[in-house]
């Protein structure tokens, strides 16, 4: 049987997606990084150090929680939540940051840079940089700075410099451009901690490997609780790191249905969305060939999503490949559907999910009712929603006030 888990090839390609489309200045460093990562992967000391920080610093393993009230409400599939929101810093992002900063340390780098959208990756990066005593610069679009002020302050509190990016629409794509410009300029001293399964090889594979702890734990935990594999997996996708982390260990289990949920914004048909697979075509941006939102001239179109973390016009190349070969089903959820699911999750489970993760929950609300009661569905609750209070108050504030008075 051919495996879905063997990619990428030596050139960093998943089928025709991925690769190393970067300026020459960065190429020697990217080759060094790939070589160093290969060495680290085979080094028991690295594995031991990573495991230590995952357990005692991040707080792993994260629980696999049977969401009883959500299950009752839907009246179908048995729903489990993988509680990545309980990690230190409140999302799955730190799984990757810990791995990459250990690699940065191995490579003797002293300065860390990162891009951030919602700020969760920025906070996770600032956190590990503080822990390892490294200088940290975070690039963040001005639009995102406005809607994620608490996270901006958290990063500063942790000692990071937050550089506002005004170019373009001031969102994640523009922050990534600016981080790449910094990296080209400070290539010798600086390690770029990319936050998702995108960018030039080896990033998509490396970030996936660091996030795959999510899927590995899920496998063991469900085995323990139910004695078998799940029937379906659901996760939201911006760049796609939490999804790839959950999905990858299950790709070769033919009986496991896998569903990725893109952000449809105002609706894919309106053009105001962030659904690269459902509304884009293949192209080359930020170091990899992948599905992109672009116009007829190959100019990148700005994404739109209520959730800053999904507001990106591209997607990790491995997702593009899994989409093309049909192993994973990719759907999309609108801003309004995500908000409704956000509210339901608060009321039914006493868990405030991130708006990103609420896209996955909305898909569950759509699918679970029609499924049999013995269908085991695992949803990645990739982050907590505390950071989204400002946005949610803006959209749901009146409704919530009215409800609480009634």
């Amino acid at each position, binding site marked *: 049987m051919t495996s879905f888990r063997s990619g990428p090839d030596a*050139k960093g390609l998943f089928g025709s997606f991925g*690769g*190393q*489309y*970067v*300026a*020459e*200045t*960065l*190429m*020697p*460093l990217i080759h060094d990084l790939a070589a160093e990562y290969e060495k680290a992967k085979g080094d028991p000391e690295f594995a031991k150090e990573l495991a230590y920080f995952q357990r005692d610093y991040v707080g792993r393993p994260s629980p696999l929680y049977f969401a009883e009230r959500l299950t009752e409400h839907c009246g179908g599939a048995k729903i489990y939540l993988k509680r990545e929101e309980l990690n230190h810093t409140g999302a799955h992002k730190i799984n990757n940051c810990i791995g990459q900063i250990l690699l940065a340390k191995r490579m003797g780098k002293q300065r860390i840079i990162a891009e951030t959208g919602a700020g969760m990756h920025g906070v996770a990066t600032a956190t590990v940089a503080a822990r390892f005593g490294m200088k940290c610069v975070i690039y963040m679009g001005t639009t995102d700075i406005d809607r994620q002020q608490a996270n901006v302050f958290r990063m500063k509190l942790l000692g990071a410099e937050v550089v506002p990016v005004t*170019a*373009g629409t001031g969102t994640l*794509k523009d922050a990534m*451009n600016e981080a*790449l*410009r910094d990296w*080209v*300029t*400070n*290539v*010798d001293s600086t390690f770029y901690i990319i936050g998702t399964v995108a960018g030039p090889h080896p990033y998509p594979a490396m970030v996936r490997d660091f996030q795959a702890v999510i899927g590995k734990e899920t496998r063991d935990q469900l085995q323990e609780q139910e004695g078998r594999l799940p029937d379906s997996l659901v996760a939201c996708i911006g760049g796609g790191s939490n999804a790839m982390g959950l999905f990858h260990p299950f790709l070769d289990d033919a009986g496991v249905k896998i569903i990725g949920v893109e952000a449809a914004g105002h609706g894919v048909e309106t053009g105001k969305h962030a659904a690269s697979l459902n509304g884009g*075509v*293949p*192209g*080359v*941006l*930020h*170091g990899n*060939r992948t599905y*992109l939102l*672009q116009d*007829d*001239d*190959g*100019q*990148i179109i700005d994404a739109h999503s209520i959730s800053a973390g999904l507001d990106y016009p591209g997607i990790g190349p491995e997702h593009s490949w899994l989409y093309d070969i049909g192993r994973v089903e990719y759907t999309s959820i609108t801003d309004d559907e995500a908000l409704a699911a956000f509210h339901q999750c608060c009321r039914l489970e006493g868990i405030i999910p991130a708006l990103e993760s609420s896209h996955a929950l909305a898909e569950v609300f759509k699918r679970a009712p029609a499924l049999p009661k013995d269908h085991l569905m695992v949803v990645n609750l990739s982050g907590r929603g505390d950071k989204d209070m400002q946005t949610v108050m803006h959209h749901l504030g009146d409704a919530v006030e009215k409800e609480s008075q009634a």
Partner: protein
Amino acid sequence: MSRLQTRFAELKEQNRAALVTFVTAGDPDYDASLAILKGLPKAGADVIELGMPFTDPMADGPSIQLGNIRALANKQDLAATLRMVRAFRDDDTATPLVLMGYFNPIHKYGVPRFIEDAKAAGVDGLIIVDLPPEHNADLCDPAQAAGIDFIRLTTPTTDDKRLPTVLNGSSGFVYYVSVAGVTGAGAATLEHVEQAVSRLRRHTDLPVCIGFGIRTPEHAANVARLADGVVVGSALVDQIAKTQERADAIDGVLSLCSQLAEGVRSARR
């Protein structure tokens, strides 16, 4: 011989370096940009690099980013850029013209169609920032097979071990990015340039052109003593940013070009 080979051979005869100028196609708009393009050879440009606008110019500094934004705001797409090259070739068949930019617009246009149309328009070479030799099959190989040169960027981080890989797929000339950074940022010292040129000459017989951070006639003259060509981009693009008037933008670019050309021509006298 290709136009690039002919031009560099002529300049070698004259014992002087080439002035290589960069402007973005469609900046500030199509008509003004075409007027600039047509005026550059008379103003002393020996080789022209014409930027293909892109929304996400990841290796460019603020000057050229803004040039891209101005051009895109006036709907300069790849088809318009190729049309501009054809219009330039109506009355100039000697000056080598190289398109420079990022891969995605070409990928979207379609590589075979792009090569055919670029060749027909009179494009001599390509500089594609995000296509390292690892991706030669994507565009470099088919372009060279069609007789379009593929000019490679080499940088301070391209070490001796990697240099042959980079140079193997190069033709036309070699562009040495003299500082690790984005376009328009700080300049390298002349010592660095001298060492870099002699290192490159050990690996290639292609002409070596130096770019990044060169802004004044004096600086251009200093570099022209050491290399086969001097590339100026951001300083010219800044002339367009400085003014609201199209006529002033055209004058600004062409008069700076004349001054730079004088610097380059005086260098080895």
